[in-house]
């Protein structure tokens, strides 16, 4: 009886603690997301980036032209300086950092780095760089989640749950789409659906929605009228469009990666690289102002027949791809989702327009193709098909449009997965040595060092010692295997007790009896260790330092224990209920 009461007491404590965390993190992340958007809009207005501001200075065209070139350039300089002198990691913090912090137990970069990265993102977006706003907002949510996780609440997996809460609230607020926020946090950040995480993340998303919708009465991001898909054969076109979008996603991701490599090759101080990209962007914008910023206006125009010609659409898709790769690669701070939305919708519009002239059948208008393209490209880039489908649904509240976009999104992801993998985020993580392709368990096993499970207690012997001396030593220490070292203590091999019994006592162990493999280093992961142990019959494996001196050993039992511990933790976390 007593223990049942304690059990319920502890459950109610856990539920209240976690709900409180969810509401608090959700509210703070949501308010910050609103503040972020407001700050960017204010800067866009002040710095003559937004068309609304530019037209007001229409009588002074020279001023507008000067601002077009100078604002992104100087904005880039500010970003470069901020990152150089403000941030200790000197790179933009983004969703991959959130994924890493949640998927493994690695700590997030410092709060200060997070704030600097956010400020740099505000300056980047504010000065019209062609980067996205949602990545920085996701990181902002991550930041507050990680802060809350520092509280000693005694709740298991609090860090992952709190980060997911922050992220879901930020997305729920930014898109005014709570279900999409909830799903995004699971699909991209948590990557599992345990009830323990699901419940608080839902609460956080709802908190974000209430703040955005009820308190601040923000308008939905994208309203669109759509009468419905009038012909069933159009679904074939939607699927085909999706596959083309996968190709576009490949181009987009490869361009961003190439631009990053190109930037590394350019012999300029890192501090002024963003300014260089800003200058190039400004010069392109003199000719085509639509490339600046997030391009809210172009998003809308893409759904209106006659707003763009086919040639204009093709040109704008190309230019936007190039300037986005340039801005992201050369160090502006920001995400890739918003540019992907814009490029996708322009491409979708172009596809719809072309289809109308090529296919000798009646089609149900530009909107379905434009929205489908937008969501397909964006979903392939961030690896979130379910989230994007839900965004369409929540933003347009249009069932027909959602079904149409769903087909495009799914076909795009089917193809893009083969070409570029799950997402740009996963590719970026892979480049940092964390490969999520074979599942989270393997990624974690690959990211943890086997050295952490090693024992320093090793029986060492000199390679010149006699077999008898080594045998005596082993018997004394109750071991079956000794590590042999050569000159200056370098590892030369191992020898087993069974072998020693067959050798003459007075002679050193002959070289042919030294077992060299396997031997681990500090870089050996648990995963590598498990593979290396296949067919291994020895007692333990030595761990060598960078110079090749043995510093410890790890037994087969320890490797199995490490594996079981990690897998068990994961299973527990991913199936936890309350």
């Amino acid at each position: 009886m007593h223990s049942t009461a304690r059990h319920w007491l502890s459950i109610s404590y856990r539920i209240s603690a976690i709900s409180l965390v969810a509401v608090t993190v959700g509210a703070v992340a949501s308010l910050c997301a609103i503040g972020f958007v407001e700050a960017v809009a204010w800067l866009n207005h002040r710095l003559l980036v937004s068309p609304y501001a530019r037209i007001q200075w229409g009588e002074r065209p020279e001023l507008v032209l000067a601002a077009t070139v100078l604002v992104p350039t100087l904005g880039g300089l500010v970003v470069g300086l901020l990152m150089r002198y403000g941030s200790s990691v000197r790179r933009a913090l983004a969703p991959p950092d959130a994924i890493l912090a949640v998927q493994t137990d690695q700590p997030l970069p410092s709060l200060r780095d997070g704030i600097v990265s956010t400020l740099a993102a505000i300056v980047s977006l504010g000065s019209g760089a062609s980067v996205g706003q949602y990545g920085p907002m996701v990181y902002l949510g991550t930041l507050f989640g990680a802060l809350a996780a520092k509280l000693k609440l005694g709740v298991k997996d609090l860090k992952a749950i709190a980060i997911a809460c922050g992220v879901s609230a930020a997305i729920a607020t930014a898109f005014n789409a709570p279900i999409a926020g909830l799903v995004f946090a699971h699909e991209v950040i948590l990557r599992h659906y345990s009830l323990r995480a699901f419940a608080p993340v839902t609460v956080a998303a709802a908190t974000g929605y209430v703040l955005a919708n009820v308190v601040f009465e923000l308008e939905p991001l994208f309203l669109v009228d759509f009468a419905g898909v009038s012909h069933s054969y159009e679904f074939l076109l939607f699927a085909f469009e999706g596959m083309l979008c996968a190709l576009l996603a490949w181009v987009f991701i490869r361009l961003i990666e190439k631009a990053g490599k190109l930037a590394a090759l350019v012999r300029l101080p890192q501090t002024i690289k963003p300014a260089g990209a800003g200058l190039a962007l400004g010069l392109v914008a003199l000719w085509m102002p639509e490339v600046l910023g997030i391009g809210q206006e172009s998003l809308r125009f893409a759904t209106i027949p006659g707003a763009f010609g086919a040639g204009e659409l093709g040109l704008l898709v190309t230019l936007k791809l190039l300037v986005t790769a340039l801005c992201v690669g050369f160090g502006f701070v920001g995400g890739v989702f918003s540019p992907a939305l814009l490029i996708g919708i322009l491409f979708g519009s172009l596809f719809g327009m072309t289809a109308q002239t090529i296919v000798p059948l009646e089609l149900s208008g530009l909107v379905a193709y434009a929205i489908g393209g937008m969501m397909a490209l964006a979903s392939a880039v961030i690896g979130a098909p379910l989230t994007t489908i839900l965004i369409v649904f929540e933003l347009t509240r249009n069932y027909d449009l959602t079904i149409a976009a769903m087909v495009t999104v799914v076909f795009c992801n089917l193809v893009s997965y083969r070409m570029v993998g799950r997402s740009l985020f996963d590719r970026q993580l892979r480049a940092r040595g964390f490969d999520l392709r074979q599942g989270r368990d393997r990624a974690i096993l690959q990211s943890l060092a086997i050295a952490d499970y090693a024992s320093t207690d090793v029986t060492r012997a000199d390679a010149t010692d006699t077999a008898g001396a080594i045998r005596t030593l082993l018997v004394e220490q109750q071991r079956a295997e000794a590590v042999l070292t050569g000159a200056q203590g370098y590892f030369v091999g191992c020898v087993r007790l069974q072998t020693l019994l067959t050798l003459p006592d007075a002679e050193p162990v002959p070289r042919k009896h030294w077992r060299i493999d396997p031997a681990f280093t500090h870089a050996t992961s648990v995963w590598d260790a498990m593979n290396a142990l296949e067919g291994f019959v020895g007692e333990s494996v030595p761990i060598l330092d960078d110079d090749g001196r043995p510093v410890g050993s790890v037994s087969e039992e320890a490797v199995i224990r490490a594996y079981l511990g990690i897998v068990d933790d994961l299973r527990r976390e991913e199936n936890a209920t309350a």
Partner: protein
Amino acid sequence: MRPLNLMWLLTTVLTLPALADTDHPTLTVVTWGGAYERSQHEAYFESFTEKTGIEVETVRFNGGLDALKEAYAKGNHSWDVIDMIKANADTACEQGLLRELDPSILAPAPDGTPASEDFIKGAIGRCAVTQLVFSTVIAYDDRAFPGVKPRRVEDFFDTQRFPGRRALRRAPVGLFEWALMSQGVPRSQLYDLLSTERGLDLAFNQLDKLRGQLTWWTGGNEPARLLAEGKVAMASGYNGRFFDAQVNDGAPITIIWDGQLLDYNSWAIPAQADQPQLAERFIRYATRAEPMAHQASLISYSPSRHSARERVGLHKETSTPMRPYLPTLPAHLEKAIHRDQQWYTQTFDLRWRLFERWMNRHATPD
């Protein structure tokens, strides 16, 4: 402003000082004529004269800044008060055409609420005080559409389903918003899109669809008359004028509230007015709750003070309840475009330039 109107205006203006008598001061109010001016006479001018012995003369104008600029250039001192669209008043204020207005001249509400809290947000400006909310709406002649009735802004541009001539004000006001709204642009994004060349092109392209079917009006009383006489099937116009034609004249006119363009009329004092104290006295009187509510019982414009709105009841002559006809009825507000005053002020020259260019390009015998 049409040359003819200008001539007429100038003659009025030049003869006015001769009429003014120093012993019996006369207040000159520049306003809009028609049913609207009649409501002002009854609600404000007559009772003001009764109370103060000061006669009120009116000069008619059709909005915009040209008349005021002209008067300023001519050194005309005789205009004491001018009734302007808020956006124009803001522009005029920036250009130094208006006197600054001391907000302390405004009377508190009858229950003592200070004016600053009683007026709607943003009503009290640097040079002008907003006195009413009106809207520019689309209305149609019921007889022109015996079957399906037009309901939405896009129906104005759909001459296939709803044939017939259209009347629009000959000014770059409202038509851009409607042209984009009819292409599915949500109200909240109108001014962002209209700030781009592409958006303005889209708007003009949409207007091109009405080519050859357009009749242009300038005076506020014209659209109701055009509809009543059956000369056009649909027309833009001020909601109060349409109301007046419906209720007072029994004209078969119906207002489409979808896309109503909300706007504000403000009282202001021209910079060169030589009787500013008198003008302030009038503005103080005309912005009290009772006369404002009185005007709203004559014409369907919504007062800009909460205390006045609470006093709006039935139409004075026909006993029609006035509230359903006010632009500020919640159901009407749901579909309203809130005119972006800043955008209008800042794009004044650009709008006119583009509009005139388009008019010239499409010069048809409209």
